[in-house]
């Protein structure tokens, strides 16, 4: 970093103004999150001055039944939505990659719509849809989360399909044909040849679906009932009415969870793989 060789014309990153620009952008992106995390340990009701280290807001957050329930709901929904969207998304990718069929362009276009349509419109659509078909709302846990989970799967699986399809492009079809020549059935060829090739994209797709689901506020806001509060919806109502340090603590836990998940993804894929997935 501090070597004194002359700066070559294309080494833009070594120019001072470029470095400060990147540094300031990173500060802009991270300062709010870091301040929030630091102040979750602050022994003061108001968020401004540092009064000393404490874990009491973590204790409060973990003893706040509503908050814990919301967190459990969120994780359950994210888990279920990830599994189903992984299956549907992978199948959709294989379908579009492998087969020629009538109205293919239409199917392909429609499948990318949940990504493009604004969240608010999708949320509204699910609100009307579930009201119209009288979807039962008084089911026992976890069935009462089904409406939210269905909504999440709808906007998650096209992302999975996109990631898996990108990976399929690099698949050598001769491998599959060789397997079949050697006596493998259609299913065996799929399970033992295609699936292993897809594994990195399935991991990336699963993580993407999990974060998208965990992150979603708007669509959940329209599909959740009084008994099916998720973490973002809970935080929203807490932020709306009063900013409590408990929110800081709970948010810090979620940020750490995100960072851990990202690093798991890194171990599977390497940094390069993660950036390619986007």
């Amino acid at each position, binding site marked *: 970093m501090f070597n004194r060789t002359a700066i070559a014309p294309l080494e833009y990153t070594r120019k001072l103004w470029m470095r400060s620009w990147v540094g300031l*952008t990173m500060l802009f992106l991270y300062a709010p*999150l870091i*301040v929030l995390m630091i102040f979750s340990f602050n022994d003061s009701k108001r968020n401004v001055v540092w009064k000393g280290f404490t874990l009491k807001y973590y204790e409060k957050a973990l003893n706040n039944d509503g908050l814990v329930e919301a967190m459990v709901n969120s994780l359950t929904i994210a888990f279920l939505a990830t599994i189903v969207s992984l299956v549907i998304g992978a199948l959709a990718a294989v*379908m579009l990659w492998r087969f020629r069929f009538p109205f293919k362009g239409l199917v392909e276009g429609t499948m990318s*719509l949940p990504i493009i349509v604004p969240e*608010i419109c999708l949320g509204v659509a699910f609100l009307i849809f579930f009201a119209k078909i009288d979807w039962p709302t008084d089911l026992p846990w976890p069935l009462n989360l089904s409406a939210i989970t269905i909504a999440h799967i709808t906007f998650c699986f096209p992302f999975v399909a996109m990631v898996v399809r990108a990976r399929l492009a690099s698949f050598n079809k001769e491998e599959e044909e060789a397997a079949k020549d050697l006596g493998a059935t259609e299913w065996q060829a799929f399970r033992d040849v295609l699936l292993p090739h897809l594994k990195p994209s399935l991991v990336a797709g699963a993580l993407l679906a999990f974060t998208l689901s965990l*992150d979603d506020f708007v669509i959940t806001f329209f599909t959740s009932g009084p008994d099916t509060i998720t973490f973002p919806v809970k935080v929203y109502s807490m*932020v709306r009415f009063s*900013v409590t340090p408990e929110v800081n603590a709970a948010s810090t836990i979620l940020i750490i969870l995100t960072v851990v998940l990202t690093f798991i993804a890194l171990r599977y894929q390497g940094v390069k793989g993660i950036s390619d997935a986007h």
Partner: protein
Amino acid sequence: MQDWESQKKPFAAVATAPVFWLALFFIAPMTIVWLYSFGQNAGPADIDISGTLDNYKRATEWLYLSIFLKSLAVAALTTLICLIVGFPVAMAITFAAPKWRPWLLLGIMLPFWTNLLIRTYALMALMGTNGYMNKGLGGLWEGASWLRTLVGMQPLEAWTPVQLLYNNFAVVFGLVYVHLPFMVLPLYSALDRLDKSLIEASLDLGAGHFKTFMQVVVPLAAPGIVAGVMITLIPALGAYLTPDLMGGTDSQMIANVIERQFKRANDWPFGAALSFLLIYAMFILIALQSMRSNKVKEAR
């Protein structure tokens, strides 16, 4: 690529679930919204789909049209700021040493993976009247005041915290904060593919850095710029959370108006019409983009 008719069973095995899901849980809900947009309230929980166009007529009244135009302006301004801030960052990542590049990319992507609500809330805490941004500005103010006394002028009046939140500025600031990673990533992938010897050639032939940037880098990165603009503009146009939490009474965007029709105002048909107008706006933007990229293809 195989024809589905020669392989009916495997095709059915892979196609059933996605097509079924898409039809039942995406097309059906959207169709109901579309039908509702031609309906009217017939009772407290009853909507009569009568084929009326009144909802659309009402949506094009100046009150709603102005909110729509304002949302478009806010989204466009957000996109422009993201582009100006994001372009040098994408350049820096592209030309960084290979061992730094993945970490810089990760640095841009990590906030993108973090919960949107938490990020908005964290930004709000920083921007409050007692927050660190106000303290920072106060510090600058006092510094300026001290400098004035140094040259023998009257010191400035004491710093009064400014209201940074709950206005249009906060909405744009919040939207930029949230959408910046969306802009940097496509820009980076376009710049990464760019042939660096072209830049070297331009510099060798005597063009300055600025001229090279404007006449070589920008035209070559155009597809990435268009992709980044679309990927930022579309979610920013439909943003709900940022204007809701950070905006004031006059900074509502179209998504907030739609939300109100479904919650407080309880006018579902009108809300449905507004959501479809928003969807049509998205379609127009996407059509413009694909028209443009077709033209570029023809020109080559």
